[in-house]
């Protein structure tokens, strides 16, 4: 037995030595690095092509405009903008005293070049390429001329980062261009390294940045492939904050994070919400009385308690949450099983065979096909229970995300659960019209409403930039939702962003949360 035991201990010794050598690494010296944890993964080092990198690169290549904390559009790279009365000519005035990280000054040519480049070679900016007819540059002003009127161009231009012309003009296919090396940026930091294997993106301080600076000379954004690991990393203190596009820190994890005692919570109401969508092209969903009955059969308070653990509130019929400007007070959703049954009864849905489930005109029990993505399983269970108590049969079908996109576009469902994002609420004519307008397709939209009144309302909004008129239209849109209930909001919620107590100066806006220039120039470390 001696020889094999000998082999066994050499192997064990080997493993132990490796382990001990590695553990001696310990935690590196904690110099001024701001560490942000996220679960949005960068899939490829393509500066423009990768979706998640596109979210991060606003830090190094600021777009023209940005949104302040209460949702108003303010200048970022541009100081301000003017619009021609017929909304076809937009002129942006570029702030002076801004320099690329390689020292060259930022000019209007860079802006003109970037927007034209987006139009020609980036898939999601196809509308620029189709409608942009002429671009004029004089001094620090850029004028874009379109062949059709745009009212929300300023909003669109909060997402297109401006790139240095002298570098990107030589790249013939920018969408497919990949490099992990440093990119030239004009923001407070430039993108130094995209490292897929280490799972992080590193920003270094921009040497020629003239504005305010924060205490940190590097910002590291590390992505995790699962929320449990991210939450544990945050709790262990090696990460300073947690950010995820259009969603909050997992509500269930907040208590254990508070227990560690060294984290504060930034709580901001968000316009992202979860709602129940109807397939209006099918019986009985097209009947408003049926939708009314469904809306009063849902126990909103319990949904708020379970899905948001109290960090949310019962929504109003007007669908649009108070976080959006142009919000008006509408009747809140109220849960009353009796009225639900009475409305069903008066609308002609009888339960003749007494099995607790109402029958359609053809005498068969009504069983709605509730199609959901797997992240909505819990809400679907509750909805099924509530509707069945009110007499409406529900069959839950879980499908994988892509299958849901395809089935939703083919309207192969009765009711579904999905979410809105802050950006989605502003899309199209704003105030969630992008989700309902049947003329507009896209992954997250339902495109179920083709009611003339609603479509005309959207076109009116799209054709004006006059703020008072827009306020009026906003009121009409919300009253339309309250009246027709194309979608039932389940709850409004607040987005929670935890941050290390020792760090102050966080600033959060509805669109990108803490990922904005105010944060990265104002963050102070009191350690």
């Amino acid at each position, binding site marked *: 037995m001696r020889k094999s035991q000998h082999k066994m201990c050499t192997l064990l010794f080997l493993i132990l030595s490796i382990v001990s050598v590695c553990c001696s690494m310990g935690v590196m010296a904690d110099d001024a690095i701001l560490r942000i944890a996220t679960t949005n993964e960068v899939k490829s080092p393509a500066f423009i092509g990768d979706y998640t990198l596109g979210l991060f690169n606003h830090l190094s290549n600021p777009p023209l405009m940005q949104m302040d904390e209460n949702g108003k559009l303010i200048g970022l790279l541009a100081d301000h903008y003017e619009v021609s009365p017929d909304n076809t000519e937009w002129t942006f005035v570029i702030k002076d005293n801004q320099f690329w990280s390689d020292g060259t000054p930022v000019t209007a040519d860079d802006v003109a070049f970037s927007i034209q480049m987006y139009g020609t070679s980036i898939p999601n900016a196809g509308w620029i390429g189709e409608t942009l007819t002429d671009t004029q540059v004089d001094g620090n002003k850029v004028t874009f001329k379109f062949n059709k009127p745009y009212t929300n161009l300023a909003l669109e231009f909060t997402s297109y980062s401006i790139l240095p012309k002298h570098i990107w003009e030589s790249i013939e296919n920018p969408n497919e261009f990949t490099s992990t090396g440093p990119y030239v940026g004009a923001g407070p930091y430039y993108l130094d390294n995209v490292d897929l294997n280490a799972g992080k993106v590193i920003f270094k301080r921009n040497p020629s940045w003239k504005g305010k600076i924060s205490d940190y000379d590097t910002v590291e954004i590390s992505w995790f492939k699962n929320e*449990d690991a991210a939450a544990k990393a945050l709790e262990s203190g090696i990460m300073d904050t947690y950010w995820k596009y259009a969603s909050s820190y*997992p509500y269930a994890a907040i*208590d254990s994070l508070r227990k560690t005692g060294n984290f504060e919570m930034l709580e901001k109401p968000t316009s992202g919400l979860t709602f129940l969508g109807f397939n209006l092209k099918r019986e009985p969903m097209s009947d408003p009385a049926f939708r009314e009955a469904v809306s009063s059969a849902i126990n909103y308070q319990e949904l708020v308690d*379970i899905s948001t653990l109290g960090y949310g509130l019962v929504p109003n019929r007007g669908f649009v949450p108070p976080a959006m400007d142009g919000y008006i007070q509408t009747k809140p959703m109220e849960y009353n099983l009796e009225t639900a049954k009475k409305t069903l009864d008066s609308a002609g849905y009888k339960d003749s065979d007494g099995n607790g489930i109402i029958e359609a005109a053809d005498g068969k029990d009504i069983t709605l096909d509730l199609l959901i993505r797997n992240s909505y399983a819990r809400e679907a*269970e509750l909805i099924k229970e509530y509707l069945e108590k009110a007499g409406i049969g529900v069959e839950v*079908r879980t499908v*994988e995300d892509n299958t849901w996109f395809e089935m939703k576009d083919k309207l192969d469902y009765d009711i579904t659960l999905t979410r809105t994002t802050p950006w989605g609420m502003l899309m199209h004519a704003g105030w969630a019209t992008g989700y309902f307008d049947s003329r507009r397709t896209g992954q997250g939209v339902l495109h179920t409403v083709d009611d003339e009144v609603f479509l005309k309302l959207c076109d009116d909004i799209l054709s004006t930039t006059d703020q008072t008129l827009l306020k009026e239209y906003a009121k009409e849109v919300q009253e339309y939702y309250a009246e027709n209930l194309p979608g039932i909001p389940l709850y409004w919620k607040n987005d929670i962003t935890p941050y290390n107590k020792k760090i102050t100066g966080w600033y959060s806006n509805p669109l990108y949360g803490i990922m904005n220039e105010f944060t990265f120039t104002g963050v102070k470390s009191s350690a």
Partner: protein
Amino acid sequence: MTVINIPSWLKKMRYTPTFCIIILGIFVYAAIFPKTISPYSPDIRFSPYGEPDENHILGTDDMGYDILTLLIYATRISLIIGVFAGILSLCIGTSIGIASGFHQGWVDDLMMGVTDIILIIPKIPVTILIAAYLHPSIWILIIVLGLFSWETTARVVRAKTMQIRNSGFVLSSRCLGFSSFSIIIHDIIPVIYPVLLPKFMLTIASAMISEASLSFLGLSDPMMESWGKMIADAFDHGGFIREMWWWFLPPAICMCVTVLAITRIGMIYESNEPEMVFE
């Protein structure tokens, strides 16, 4: 040395540790009559994320359901999926393994060719396909899990069959004119059984685990309460971040104990009396 012959399996049953039979009995009972032993009915909700206390022995989950009740009601589906998928995959695997190990030549090539191809088809896309076109009921899940886990059993059984194919007792029963089918039943399976037993146990375990990973990847029907789904729900809804051991460890322990019990009962057939040298 003829002995009064009590049926051999009954005689051996005495030797399996009785607690294995009791545990399996409890699980089967819980699967058939969950109502009788569960403290609450599965659709009553209490306060969410409750710690284990006197009226909730295992606390409550994120929706407020009592975890012990969920555990009991989940037994049925987990047992059915685990055992049936395990048996299905074992039967297919053994029959193809023995057939290709026993009959050499083109039969072996054909069978092993089919096994290679099915081995390579990745499970996740097929499950997505099935979840999209068919409504994933429990039987479809069993068939999918059964059809996609027999390849390794087939290859192991084939290797073992080829080993003993030419040994003395097989040849002797062949020249006695036994049909190859009865040779397989009486000669080959008893010898293969000890190798097959760990494989059968691994298949049951992997059937339960793949059901768990399907619910983790969100491809199984949310209405089917099973141990695997409980663990997946615990991960999705903060059970792990809040370190609620009492939420996801009990289903994992139940899975282990079931597989242990089934294996232990299977082991009684593992003959450990040495080959009688004295006859």
